[in-house]
């Protein structure tokens, strides 16, 4: 499936536009299919982006002024 280069928020906005366009009953089939396809890509992308982030809690350990480590926080 094609990918999108949009940011999450832009994708969400576009998704909303697509839905409101599809709500127009006079829309041509051609355009509808195009929008549908795009909408699928966008919603999958949005979900994926949300799902990708897993719970991760880390704490910064400063070594000196210029370097630090990330350690798991318990």
């Amino acid at each position, binding site marked *: *499936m094609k990918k999108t280069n949009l940011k*999450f*928020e832009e994708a*969400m906005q576009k*998704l*909303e536009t*697509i*839905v409101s366009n*599809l*709500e127009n*009953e006079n*829309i*041509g*089939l*051609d355009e*509808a*299919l195009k*929008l*549908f*396809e795009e*909408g*699928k890509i966008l*919603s999958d992308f*949005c*979900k994926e*982006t*949300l*799902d990708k*982030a*897993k*719970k*991760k*809690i*880390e*704490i*910064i350990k400063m070594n000196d002024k210029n370097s630090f480590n*990330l350690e798991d*926080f318990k």
Partner: protein
Amino acid sequence: MNKKVQNFKNENKNYQFNFNFIDSENLDNLNNLDKNQSQTTSKNLLDRNARHIYKVSEINSIIKETLEKDFLSIWIEGEISNSKLNFSGHFYFTLKDNLGQIKAVMFNSLYSYLKFIPKDGMEVIVKGSLSCFIKGGTYQINVLYMEPKGKGALLIAFEELKKRLEKEGLFDKTHKKPIPNFVNKIGVVTSPTGAAIKDILTVLDRRFSNLHIIIYPSKVQGEDAKFEIKKGIEFFNSWAEKVDVILVGRGGGSIEDLWAFNEEMVARAIYNSKIPIISCVGHEIDYLISDFVADLRAPTPSAAAEMLIKEKQELLNNIDYLSNSINNLMDNILKINFLKYDRLNFFNIIKLFDKFFNNLCQNFDYFSSEFFENFDTIFNKKIVDYEIKINKLLSLDPKKILALGYSVIKDKNGNFAEAKDLLIGEEIEVCTKNYILFCRLISKEKIYK
């Protein structure tokens, strides 16, 4: 003057002595009281032939009158003990030092505006007026104002800084950055062992876990706290791995404990942050400087976490809703469009099928079973009718169909046109393999029913 009067006066002097911290205005009052009292008393004594016997209520009411008139506005310092907040919100307590005590009350209407919570053992300075109860022979101070002892300076500093920064525009709404709807990475500047981080993580566990939290460990009270909080904010701003939002906060505590969040250094670090900041210090009632400067103020660290996490859950719901809408709408559009095709239209059917099957393959599960049933009944017949031709053409793309000698008719605006919709005399475009023919429709004849 007889001895009794002398005693009364002496007592009065002792009384005055006990209140030796009364300001000069009250001292004058007291001197006047002294004079007045002796005069009235002497007069009474003369009238009653030297031996005057007061009724208890009588002497109490004289005392009441005197106290209330002459101690209208006094300052007292002492330690709170035996405090009790009654059900209607009035705060009763005893003010004491190591030699004495006085009952005190602060009524709800004033108590509720206090910027701190007075507790037993706390040293305070109060301003108020004395009142006396004739029935019980007791007196108390009605407290009009109270400040923690030694904290006056802090509060003054707070007000001064607040005014100055406000004037400078640090609290301006126009400078506030919106908190992003979509938060993936959260930077937290707080103590790793404090209540704030525990609260935030508890909320995460309970509600939604797909987040990346990075803690910048910092002291949140004491002299070093302001430096470390500032460093934490600057760290997240300079870090290549951008966080979406920064939480700066700690659990609740006394005003001194929270003081770092009232420091100008911290306020400026918040103001200069490119990343939106939520100030979340566990102190639901009071506002700190950090609350005014931050892009958003949460009353507690848990509340901040809930704000962010709720947004994310809402987003997920929203995506689901939009995605379902798209599927349902497309379902409908396909149904409507298939119904329109009541006669052979190779180009459109092929195009449609091409896309439809492609989508079907990709998004099989998004179409309802109901749709397939309808699809079967409505179109099976037609599909059988044209099966051979369609199968033959299905393997071809639209250009190849044109190459076979078919053509596509569009109206003058370039939209696909159906013959039934075209009017005699209308300008049309006929698209063939290599040419577009611009034509005018001379006549039309219906050949299929």
